């Protein structure tokens, strides 16, 4: 039981780490730190960095939460931890 819970937690931590890395990259990375070089590229009338800051990051957050939820549901089944 102990081992099972520990590896469940380890897998969860790994998923969280991946998700938060993407979370950081799309908002702070593309929307803030890299905004100037990205702004030289255009997406329609949007400058790309501006688009990530005001649109793209929000869409990415949505994708991340649902992806994490789906992965965790699988993990819960694998470890029979579903309630």
């Amino acid at each position, binding site marked *: 039981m102990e081992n099972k*819970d520990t590896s*469940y*937690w380890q897998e*969860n931590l790994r998923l*969280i780490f991946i*998700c*938060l890395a993407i*979370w950081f990259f799309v*908002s*702070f990375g593309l*929307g*803030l*730190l890299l*905004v100037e070089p990205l*702004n030289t590229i255009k*997406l*329609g*009338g*949007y*400058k790309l960095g*501006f*688009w990530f*800051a*005001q*649109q793209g*990051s*929000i*869409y990415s*957050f*949505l994708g*991340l*939460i*649902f992806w*994490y*939820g789906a992965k*965790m*549901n699988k993990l*819960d089944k694998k*470890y*029979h*931890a*579903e*309630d």
Partner: protein
Amino acid sequence: MEELKLYTYIAVFGTFGVYFAIAWWARAGTTSDFYVAGGGITPLQNGMAIGADWMSAASFISMAGLIAFLGYGGSVFLMGWTGGYVLLAMLLAPYMRKHGKFTVPEFIFDRYYSKTARIVAVACLIIASLTYIIGQMKGVGVAFSRFLEVDYDNGLYIGMFVVWVYAVLGGMKGITYTQIAQYVVMIFAYTIPAVFISLQLTGNPIPQLGLGSTLADGSGMYLLDKLDLVVTDLGFKEYTTANLGGTLNMFAYTISLMIGTAGLPHVIMRFFTVPSVQAARSSAGYALVCIALLYTVAPAVGAMARLNLMNTIEPAAGQNLEYAERPQWFKDWEKTGLLKYEDKNGDGKIQYTSNKTDQPVTITSAVSGKEIILLPNEMVKVDRDIMVLANPAIANLPNWVIALVAAGGLAAALSTAAGLLLAISSSISHDLMKGVLTPDMSEKNELLAGRVVMTIAIMVSGYLGLNPPGFAAGTVALAFGLAASSIFPALMMGIFSKKMSGPAAIAGMCSGIGITMLYVFQHKGIMFIPGTSFLGDMGPNWFFGISPNAFGAVGAIVNFAVAFAVLKFTGPAPAHIQAMVENMRVPGNVSAAHDH
């Protein structure tokens, strides 16, 4: 004009009637379960309720106005207020739901096995929530002053009264269903005018796409390029690149809003009522869907409002609007005192430029490169908070749309104010009085205490709303900084660090919120009272140029650092607490949310 008034009354009173009817109906149906909103609530409905609870006057009324004037710099609000849900879904909600308690201080009490920790959490919660309500009061005041055509102060008094009636009568029970209705009103009120305006300006009905499209005026120019050109020719900063106090400040500001979102008790509370750990995760997702619907439209609303405002005042370069021919919305907002014009050069026309001096200055436009003579600015006051409410009128939309926006703004302010008042009153009556001071208090007295606390909270926030420390979204941003520096780190360490002990967490919370408050007060005035700040509120006095609104990020780092330092010297949490944390981390055997 009379027609507009009639529509506004119908929209506002009609929606209020619906909220009260729902509150009444839900109360009659579910007298038995007071806290858990019942198993019949789907994740989508729960998401809508969280959306209404979450999206306040700041989101609805202020945010697009801030974006309109800040341009790219306004992105901190967009990323900050949505990114927090990622943290909530992964770092807090599922584990706190598994533990199964009702208030945040109660969770802190269990995890840190200390009444002191509970009291500190209550204090942090009240400070953050009260600051947040001030922002709502400002929004309510603005909305009522416009809608009843009174000045701002009277609008605020009326707003305080309505919030009081609403929170005490309708706020306690059936709040979830009322909030679903409020979400629906809010989202329609926000998106319908945006669709109209986007269609008018670009021919594309979807505002998110319209913002990136070309203008429908035959020029073939992209809307954002046009906006950049127009504002820079008047001496303002380029819209799509205007920074907000430097990259470090924007970084800290965004972090502060994100972790503040995840640490605000009235939002966390919503996750305690879902049926399972899995539902806690998916509810965060649905909540963000509901929120993103408004948040991805907001940048379009802001940019288009700014362009329309500029075009109304100066339809073509040098052809300024005659003051005598100003449109009706201009006159209406002048009455509220939130829009002011002063004919500095006596030509009877309106000049709206960045030139704050009394003399014309010559500048080189950043985009067109032209030499431009800027006349002194005559729009001496354009309150940013009026932009969303004035937007449909500026764009000449039909009166029923304008009326709908008034109803939406009030729904946003009321639903959040009610949620916050509930969090404050439960933390005092449930956590402080029943939990710590007088454990044998009867349920009746607990409820009475809750109502008294609500009344006091409304009066305090009303007073501070009369002496507004800033724009609604700006004030609200401080609340996030306070929650970010105190509650979020304590909760996160409680889940992710088994060894984290009570004394260490208490030291962390106190130093985190302490340093943030000190920083805010020294620049903004003690309790935001103007004139009591001992360091000026200006860039050169700021720590690394980080504005007080963004300082929550630094406060949070201090919180984590102090907690781990104290942990090193005082030893880890006892074994049974560590076992409890391990249990929290794994779903399975989830207990129904229960009240001790």
